[in-house]
Structures are given as C-alpha cells and as structure tokens.
C-alpha cells in the first residue's frame, strides 16, 4: 500500500491540470462552473480542443487514437477535467458507440466513423430506452424488418439526450420477434437523424430545460451495412457499452467543484450581518458531505488501482450509487445556501440575485435525474445485493 502518486503520475496529473486550465476556452469552462446550459458549439469546441491534443478518447484502442493508459491515469484525466470545469467528451461518442465500433464494428465501419466520432464531427445520440422499456430495456418494441438491402425501422425511443443536436443515432431494434429469449432478438443499427421517417420531439424537464427527446421511426430505411456487429447480438453490445467506464460515473471531481463553490457562496451570504459560513450547522453540513466525498474518491481510487486486470473491482458498483447521492447532496446544499434567493430561478436583468443563486433550484431539480439514469439507484442496489452479497 502506498499513498503518494509516483513522480511520473504526479507529472502526468500536472500536465493534465495545465492543459485543461489553459487550452480549453475559459468562457466554456465558466459556463460549466455556473451550471449554464451549453450551446452545441461549446461541446464541439471543447472536444476538438481535447482531441487535437489526443485527450478526447484515451481509453480507445491506440490505433484509433487511444492512449493505452492505466485505469489510474484515466481516473486522473477525468477528475482533473471535472475539477477544471471542462465539458467531458460527449459520452455517446467516446464512451458508448466509439468503443462498440472499435470492438465489434467491421474495418469499413471503423474507418468510416471512428475518427469523426472522436472529433465530434459526427454527433451521436442513443436510441435505447422506450416508453415501456426503461430499466427493463430488453422488452423494447422498436422493430427492424429486412427488406432487400435495407432494414425498415418502426417504433419509438425516448430519453434520447441531446438528440436535438445529433447527426446520427445508434439504436437497439428487435430483429427477431420470435427469439425464445427476448434479449436474443435484438440488433444494433446506426443511421442519420435526418433519414426520412425520423421525427424528434423535445421533452421539457422540470427545470425548464430541454435535454431529452422522444424519437419516432416510421418506415425508416437503413442500409444493411449500418448493422453493427452480428444480427441479434445487439444485447451483448449494449451490455458492453453500458458496462463501459462504470468508474467515471462517480463524478467526484464535479461534486468537489460544487462543494468548493458552496463554501465560497456561504461566505458571500450574510445572516444578521455575519457570513453564513460561520453558522456551525452549515459548516458541519459541508464537512459531512466533504468527508463522504473523500470516502467516495478513495473508493474510486481503490477500484481503479485494482482493476488493472480488466475485471471491475466489486466496490465499483458503489460508485454510481453513492456518486449520484453526493451530486444531489451538493446541489441541495447549494440550494439551501441560496435560501430565499433560490426563488429567483429565472431572473434576468434587473435582479439583484447573483447568477449562482438563480441557477440553484433548476440545478437541484435537474439533478434528480442522476439517481435515475444510467442504471437507477434501485438497479445498483439490485446489483450489489445480487452479484456481491449473493442475495
């Protein structure tokens, strides 16, 4: 057991920190810090800045731009990115379809898509969940029927995040309705969002924002060469994709950043003329969340330090569960620091309420999602009880 990073890793961390804080446009990082919604162009500029330096897809195979880093290096890379408020490379591109294409796509598909996917020249969105297939994804109903050289896709997807910006969609479709096991009749297709028969309906969220969509398919014709991997093997690719980078979801760096902001704002808010930060209850609440974050970060480090052999450390299932709880605790803390000012959520010019306090409630409401998406906390508990405790 050793606490310190090796000199090489210290240097690596310094290199990442310097790059993220100097080479990614400041105004984009300011948007992230203030929890303002990013424009499509902000995502693209940030990811291209990373990609130009070879830092967008370090976990990909080297021949497609990967870095052959250790899990610990990837962890440091991600944490420093979050601490510096750099928008992470689009997960749909870099953590989801990219790795699937690299692992299961044919050579032509790799050459056609991977470079553009890394550089966000193609913006991908995900077509997995359906109105009646949420946690129970395998019961999806969208169908693809072979017709000549095409697949004809009909059905509906939902919760498609940032679909309004997407050029292409990777989609789970049922290609064998007769399969004895419903998981076995599913394939993965990719196609342009502007294909005839694709329509998109934005869904407003309780914070007033639009980040998810319903996507409808009506006789969408998809060329046969857009099938990824083998027919009816889509479920395996989906599991591979969803299991990918489980460690990243702890989002410790992002929560640490929020907590640091909370401390600062607690200094700015005054109660009877004294800073709220001097209130012992507020200090104690911050200290308790902070200690939980230390525990989470150390657990993430245990996981990455031990998962060099590839198979995920058992404790990794803890990361999504507690990571989402602590992200929510941080947003709730910010909300309560704002206190009466948190009412001014959509104030604009002519308000004396600071930006961060205006953003507090929408951010709190929006973050209710983090314990639901990407495998709800109930799913995580099921995994822990089943796979780890054998219950």
């Amino acid at each position: 057991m050793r606490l310190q990073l090796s000199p090489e890793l210290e240097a690596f961390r310094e290199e990442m920190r310097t790059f993220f804080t100097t080479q990614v446009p400041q105004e984009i990082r300011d948007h992230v810090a203030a929890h303002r919604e990013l424009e499509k162009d902000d995502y693209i500029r940030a990811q291209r800045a990373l990609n130009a330096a070879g830092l967008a897809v370090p976990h990909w195979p080297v021949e497609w731009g990967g870095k052959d880093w250790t899990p610990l290096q990837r962890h440091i890379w991600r944490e420093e990115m979050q601490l510096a408020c750099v928008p992470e490379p689009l997960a749909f591109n870099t953590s989801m379809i990219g790795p699937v294409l690299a692992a299961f796509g044919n050579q032509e598909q790799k050459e056609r898509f991977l470079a553009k996917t890394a550089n966000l020249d193609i913006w991908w969105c995900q077509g997995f969940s359906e109105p009646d297939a949420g946690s129970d994804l395998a019961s999806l109903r969208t169908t693809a029927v072979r017709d000549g050289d095409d697949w004809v896709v009909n059905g509906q997807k939902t919760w498609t995040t940032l679909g309004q910006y997407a050029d292409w969609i990777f989609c789970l479709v049922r290609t064998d309705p007769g399969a004895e096991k419903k998981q076995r009749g599913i394939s993965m297709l990719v196609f342009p969002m502007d294909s005839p028969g694709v329509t998109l309906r934005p869904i407003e969220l309780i914070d007033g924002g639009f980040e998810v969509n319903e996507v409808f398919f009506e006789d969408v014709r998809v060329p046969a060469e857009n099938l990824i991997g083998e027919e009816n093997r889509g479920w395996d690719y989906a599991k591979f994709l969803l299991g990918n980078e489980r460690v990243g979801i702890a989002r410790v760096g992002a929560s640490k950043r929020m907590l640091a902001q909370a401390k600062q704002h607690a200094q700015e808010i005054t109660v009877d003329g004294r800073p709220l930060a001097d209130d012992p209850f507020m200090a104690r609440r911050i200290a308790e969340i902070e200690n939980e974050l230390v525990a989470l970060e150390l657990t993430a480090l245990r996981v990455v330090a031990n998962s060099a052999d590839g198979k995920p450390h058992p404790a990794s299932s803890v990361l999504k569960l507690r990571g989402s709880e602590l992200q929510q605790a941080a947003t709730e803390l910010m909300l309560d620091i704002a206190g009466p000012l948190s009412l001014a959520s959509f104030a604009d010019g002519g308000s004396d309420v600071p930006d961060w306090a205006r953003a507090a409630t929408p951010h709190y409401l929006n973050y209710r999602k983090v314990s639901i998406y990407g495998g709800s906390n109930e799913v995580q508990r099921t995994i822990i009880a089943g796979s780890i405790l054998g219950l």
Partner: protein
Amino acid sequence: MNFDYDSEQNDLREAVRGLLARAYSDSEQRRGVVKADPGFDEKTWSRLAEMGLLGLPFAEDDGGMGAGPVEVAIVAEEIGRVLAPEPFIETVVLAGGLVSAVGTAEQRAEILGGISEGSTIAVFAHAEPRTRWAATAREVTATQSGDGWTLTGVKEPVPSGARADLLVVSAAVDGGTGLYLVQGDAAGLTRTAYRTHDGTRAANVRFDGTPAQQLGEGGDQTAAIERALAEARIAYGHEAIGAMDTALRTTADYLKTRKQFGVTLNKFQALTFRAADMYVSLELARSVALWASMVQDAGGDVVAAADRARLQVSRAGRHIGEEAIQLHGGIGVTAEYSVGHYTSRLIAIDHLLGDGDWAAARLAAKVADYETVDPLGAPYAG
C-alpha cells in the same frame, strides 16, 4: 380537544375543492395558466372572491367573513392539492393579515374591502437580497417627508411583486422596522418580474424616493411582522400538506399501474416500503400543521407553533418531493408529468419565510428552557 372539521368546514372544503378542480383539472391546464403572466388565472381569482375566500379571515366590519385560521388552512390545503398558483397566502394571509393587524380603521376598510372583492391584489414586500428570513428590514429605508413618507432601497424576491396593485413594504426607520403602503403605480417604483421554478412569478422591487403611506400608527412593527410571518408559515404548511398528499397519491397510483419486468411496480417491496415511509412523513407533518392552526385559533404562541410546523413540514416536503420523483423514474423529472411540479413547489414553499434548518436552529436555541413539551398546554393552549 378534537381534530375534526365541523360540517361548515367540511362544506367549505368541498366548495373550494370543487372550484379548484374545475380550474386545474389536470397538470396541463395549470401548465397553460402559468406559462403566461401574471402566472395565475385572473378568472379563478375572481371566483375565489365570489366565494368569499379572499376575505375569509378579515373581520366582518372590514368587509371580511370573520372566519378563523382553520378555514384559511382548509383553503391553503386545497390550493396545494392542485398547485393552484393564485397568490392567496401572499395577498390574504400575509399582506391582508398585516393590514388587519396594524392598519387604521380607514386603511382596513379600504384595503381589506378591495382584497375581499378581488379588486386589489396586495403583497408583502419584505425579503431583501442581503437579509435571510429576518422579521426586520435593513436595505429599504423609510424617510419622513412632510406628512408622508418616501422609501428607498430594494426588495427581492417579492412573490407576485409586479402584478400587485398594492405593496405592503417593511422598511428600516428610527427605532426599528416600520410598515408602509405603496401603490403599484407610484412614482419612483421599478418592478422587474420573472418566472420562478414553480411556475409562479416574483419580482425585484426597487424604491427610489418612492412616496408611501404609513400603515397604522407607526412605531416598530417587528412583532407584528414576526406574527404575520408565523401565520403565513402555518398556511404554507397546509399548502404543502395538500401538495404532499397529491404527490403521494400520484406515486402510489403509478406504482400500481406502471409495469417493469412484466409486473406492476407495487410488486417490488423496496418501492412499496418507501411509499409507506412517505405516508408516515405526511401524516406526522399533517398533525403538526393542524395543531399549529389550532394554536393560532386558541390564541397560543403562534410563533413557536409555526416553527414546529415549519420544521416538520420542511423535512416531510424534502422527503416526499424527492421520493415521489425517484419512485416514478424518468417520467418524474419531465414537465409534462405532474409529480415534478409538486416537488418544485414544495421546494419553493420551503425557501419562502425560512427553511427546516432555520426553524430547527430557532427551536434549538430554546430547547433548554423547558423540560417537556405539552402541545395541549402552555404556551400553546393560549
């Protein structure tokens, strides 16, 4: 000692429920209303007036119905049940309550009459950008000029502050905090309105030598403000009870109908137990909210009772608001489904007039002064 509504109170409850059920039969109807300024339905406001609800707690001499806090609580709970966005508590309980408590006979007759008829929407402009749930004013100051007064400074956020016809304003003055009346069209008054996350409206209200009339006979009104805030906290508590009740019922219905893995969600014990815990939170909070209204009715220590209700309702609101979304899953965070709006409103109520930690700190400061709490005895029984 009893917790039952009498038959008139039950009738009132049914009447209010019926009126609001027509106005807000579903969440889409409310969404439509709150999209446009002033963030509520003027027609519904008139109907509330026609039913006499806007004058409910005011003395009959002042043009009111002379009803008590229990009747006000009934209306507030029904408002919460459907998230009616009309500023009932802001206008009737808070602004109206202050006028009826400290106003001159003339002021009471004029203002409370107007509120009761629905022709005057009055709100209390009290919160300031740099104060936090205090009963006093610091940033808006009042200056005597001739036989009138002028106000200078900023109030924010002021619920329905831009729509209001009349502002009751707290301001720092020699010897404490005074209360003043400012007309919506007064000179030197700048109001900037904005939507709040719960669909209602609030405003930044800027006074710049704005002419104002003193409310009542003057002097330090901190005690009157503290009391009015306490009565409003109790009323908001009942609004929250109504909202939690709907949020829980909506969640239970969803668990009974939504299918995953081939069965309805109520087959998952971990989910049904969490719904049971929501029920526990709701019923405990309901008990304290009802009690606080009875304390007010009995002339007991309404400020202390309001702190207790505030703490209990705040904890329950966080618990139920967050669990209601979580037990729904993705649909719970969409604006197209109802339950998230309840969570949003519960959070708004919690940050109006003092949150749970604020109330807990106030109670903690006094906890060593007595041995046990007797909710039926002093200082609550009056």
